[in-house]
């Protein structure tokens, strides 16, 4: 057996692929669903926190900063394991899907908060002054003048972070969320063959490459018109 044959046998085994394709495709749906939920909820929550922080109410800001710093420091896997294996001991039993959703949403929200906050503070003071001088209130100025500019400024880091965290849905495989990776590793151990993992990789690329490309277009779309 040549080296190539051995490689093909291990990673491109048609028989194994055919057998496990349906279950892995089932995992695609779980990954897509989770990713969308996490991106939407995480970015909304993070943006809302950044806005709250703009009011500079000291105790509230402190809470937000502590939340953002803790969730940005902790590896999500640690939280996922604690949430899934630890919380039931204190009476909270969440499904694996729910644990993964909550932890990754909070993680993305923590990063989003910091990123959008950076955008808010980078918006020139003159924008606040111009809007306030026309009689707009603080909240109106934040929502209609500052936030649209802040978000435009931070779209590149924000999309990067959103993609990075969405990919972490693969961590769900350790607590039994039937996502792409979980289905693939199951198939791999049943078949003793690595082809399902290669398929999983291909599917991840297929899923996330369009997202990466879409984020580029989003950046171009929101560039200032000059």
């Amino acid at each position, binding site marked *: 057996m040549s080296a190539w044959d051995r490689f093909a046998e291990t990673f491109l085994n048609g028989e194994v692929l055919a057998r496990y394709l349906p279950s892995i495709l089932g995992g695609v749906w779980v990954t897509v669903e989770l990713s969308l939920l996490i991106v939407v909820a995480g970015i909304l929550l993070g943006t809302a926190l950044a806005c709250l922080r703009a009011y500079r109410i000291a105790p509230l800001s402190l809470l937000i900063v502590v939340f953002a710093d803790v969730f940005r420091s902790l590896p999500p896997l640690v939280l996922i394991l604690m949430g899934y294996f630890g919380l039931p001991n204190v009476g909270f039993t969440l499904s694996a899907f729910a644990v993964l959703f909550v932890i990754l949403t909070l993680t993305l929200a923590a990063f989003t908060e910091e990123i959008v906050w950076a955008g808010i503070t980078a918006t020139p003071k003159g924008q606040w002054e111009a*809007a306030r*001088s*026309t*009689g*707009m209130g603080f909240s*109106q100025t934040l929502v209609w*003048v500052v936030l649209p500019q802040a978000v435009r400024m931070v779209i590149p880091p924000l999309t990067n972070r959103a993609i990075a965290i969405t990919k972490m849905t693969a961590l769900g495989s350790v607590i039994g969320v039937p996502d792409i990776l979980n289905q693939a590793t199951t198939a791999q151990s049943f078949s003793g063959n690595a082809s399902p993992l290669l398929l999983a990789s291909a599917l991840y690329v297929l899923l996330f490459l369009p997202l990466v490309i879409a984020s580029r277009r989003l950046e171009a779309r929101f560039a200032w*018109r*000059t």
Partner: protein
Amino acid sequence: MSEMNATDRVGGTKPPTLQLSGLHKSFGTVEVLREIDLTVERGQMVFVLGRSGSGKSTMLRCCNRLEEPSAGSIFLEGQDICARGVDLDKIRRRIGMVFQSFNLYPHLDARRNVTLALRKVLKLGRDEADERATSALDRVGLANRADHYPGQLSGGQQQRVAIARAIALQPVVMLFDEPTSALDPELVGEVIAVMRELKDLHMTMLVVSHEMAFAREAADRVVFMADGRIVEDAPPEQFFTQPSEESTRAFLARYSA
């Protein structure tokens, strides 16, 4: 342009449009405004001159409380705008402000720069706001640029949109904070032309600027500030030809040289 003086009442003696009385402002231990008394009567254009650091911008920014005065009072048509419990947003919609760096909203086109406050502050409907914006932009000669974004406009055009944004709210007074200082020399004229037109429409204006020729030609009064005080307050002819203070003379000698 009678709508600019929406509060106009026939007869009776009205309080001055803007009156600063005993105004003080300190940043930390630095006193930047001391005992400022200044009155701007309705329809007047008052020019404020002075070296940088003399406190003129700070004084102007106190007039709509972008800077908080440390002491003293400011009256807008007789109402103390520093009084406790005053609704600052309501006050500010009656005071137009134009900034040195324009401060247009870069994510909105010219029309929506003007309509934003009309919609959100005055709560006008879209059609009415658009109509007012068109008329304000027309007033500054930019109705044909309504769908341009700030980044697509020259500095002079941006400043004219900024003026349109302020006059669309039909303020009782306009504050100009060095409106031409950030402009290339060839663009200064178009902004001054718009200000001259506002003056012809009897808009009340308080202007901080270094445009001496314009001050001399158009101002009703010229005020000179030094070290946080008003040292001279005179009609332009007198101010430029026979100022009473030595510091004014030194300033004028330096600038007209």
